[in-house]
């Protein structure tokens, strides 16, 4: 394979830099001995200490992680099916259904789902948040899968069918492995969207099921204190560890 050229590498490095400069600010200020988040004063662990004596914040972080994982898994499965269906039979109504929630302003999703949950008498809590997140994550997964599928060689599938493979077998043995990078890219987006969502969660969260973004928004008024930087840093690390561990447990599912 052709080796990436120098200009390409340079451009990529610059994009990584763009992605990481704000992150560096977040991490550095989580160790800053001033609650102002304005200039460097001195090194301290105290925001991490404070964080660990704040059960509500930790509970919220746990809620966020669980909800994001569940939403990513569920939308991964549904979105994968939707992506294949979109590709196989190009129905306008289906793509409107899948892309609709992506196109709809999130505040409308939040309010309309709240009304729907009330209508169907679905109690508000972690479950309702997951259901809400999945509804707009499906589209993201489906699009990633569809982009992966277009132009894919269908002759493999036909060959498998000719050889007597059942649809399930040909799906499991041929389609799915080929699609996995798309599914994983989609699930990563779903996880990211879910863990960061504020608006939809605000409306669909029940009493006491606050997620981290809700907690953090509540602290905004007295400016984001470094404690919030600390919890963000930890959340990032925890997610990283979790993903790494998961990829060890089920090697096929994460390695393309």
């Amino acid at each position, binding site marked *: 394979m052709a080796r990436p050229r120098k200009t390409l590498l340079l451009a990529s490095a610059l994009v990584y830099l763009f992605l990481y400069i704000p992150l560096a600010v977040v991490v550095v200020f989580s160790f800053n001995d001033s609650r102002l988040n304005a200039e460097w004063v001195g090194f301290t662990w105290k925001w991490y200490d404070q964080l660990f004596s704040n059960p509500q914040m930790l509970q919220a972080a746990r809620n966020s992680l669980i909800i994001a994982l569940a939403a990513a898994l569920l939308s991964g499965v549904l979105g994968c099916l939707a992506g294949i269906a979109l590709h196989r039979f190009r129905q306008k109504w289906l793509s409107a259904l899948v892309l609709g929630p992506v196109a709809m302003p999130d505040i409308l999703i939040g309010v309309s789902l709240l009304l729907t949950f*009330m209508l169907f008498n679905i109690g508000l809590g972690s479950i309702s948040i997951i259901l809400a997140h999945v509804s707009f994550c499906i589209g993201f997964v489906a699009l990633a899968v569809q982009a992966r599928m277009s132009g894919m060689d269908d002759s493999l599938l036909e060959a498998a069918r000719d050889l007597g493979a059942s649809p399930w077998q040909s799906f499991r043995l041929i389609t799915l492995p080929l699609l996995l990078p798309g599914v994983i890219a989609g699930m990563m987006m779903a996880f990211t969207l879910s863990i960061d969502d504020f608006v939809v969660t605000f409306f669909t969260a029940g009493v*006491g*099921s606050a997620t981290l973004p809700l907690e953090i928004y*509540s602290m905004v*008024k007295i400016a984001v204190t470094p404690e919030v930087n600390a919890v963000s840093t930890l959340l990032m690390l925890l997610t990283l560890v979790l993903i790494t561990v998961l990829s060890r447990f089920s090697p096929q599912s994460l390695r393309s």
Partner: protein
Amino acid sequence: MKKFLCCVVLGLSQTVLADKALNLFNWNDYIADETVARFESECGCKVVQDYFSATEEMMAKLLAGNGDYDIVIPTQNAVEALVKQGFLTPLDKSKLSNIGNMAAGFMNKSYDPGNTYSLPYAFTTTLIGYNETKMAELGLEPGDWSIIFDPKVLSKIKGKVTVMDDSEELFAAALKYLGYSANDSDEKHLKEAQAVILKAKPYWAAFNSSSYIKELTVGNIWVAHGYSSDMFQARSDAAEAGRSFTVNFVIPKQGAVLALDNMVIPRKARSPELAHQFINFMMRPENAAELSNIVGTGNPNAAAKPFIEEEILAISAIFPSEQQLNSLETLDARNAKSRRVMSRLWTELKVK
């Protein structure tokens, strides 16, 4: 993978099975951690707080039917709306032995005659926070609404001013500047207020209700329109961080908005018993005093006065004098029509 799914299920069921808990729907940073901890040990329960940063945010959530909180802390006009919607449960006064501690001037108000549904919690004013050092340097007088509305004054501090991103509050300030009542619903007067805002807008850095405390403390902004308790925070933050300037706040001489926040119990509350216990607890003088000492609010609890630090009692923007009280107004609940007029004017001025 199975292991992982188990974890998810376990985690979810744990969140569902909470202990005995008081669910409190409160403003951001509107109760001291110390107070919460003391109540928790006293009742043997957990206090679970959800927060809102605007009346409208809270109303949006409650009115959609999502309201099984035990205690909500709405402002007076929201109490009126919630009562009319039949959202609240009447208070059982026999469980509220500390009710006599409250100052008579804050009781039996028109939004809830006889305090059937609500008891006062704390009050704040919406005023001007400013960088004292800069104002002195520039020779500006911040104790007048002209500091945020008069282009002549503003030209000296262009791009260093923020106003609240809140139609009710900003219109109230502009109406006060023009000499009208903050509750004026005459469309002509509201249009005049809009014109004042539009003229001043090019000089403002932003409509900002969320980060003005920080901007003031850091020094990016010199004048901010916001709540007294937030300005109190900014002032102590700046002092604590040893900034090269000081932050202060003042009620403009034309008068301002006073917000009286109240404790209410929704009809659908899960544990009304605990809710009554909390209200009674908050009316105890030493607990009520912490609202002033730590959060920086005005205090409707007369018995709490001896427990409030001298220095805070002396701040007239937190504890207004008799004379200032006369110039302060609480906002009424606007009816749907007046709200629509205002919303249109607000949208227009934001977009223009």
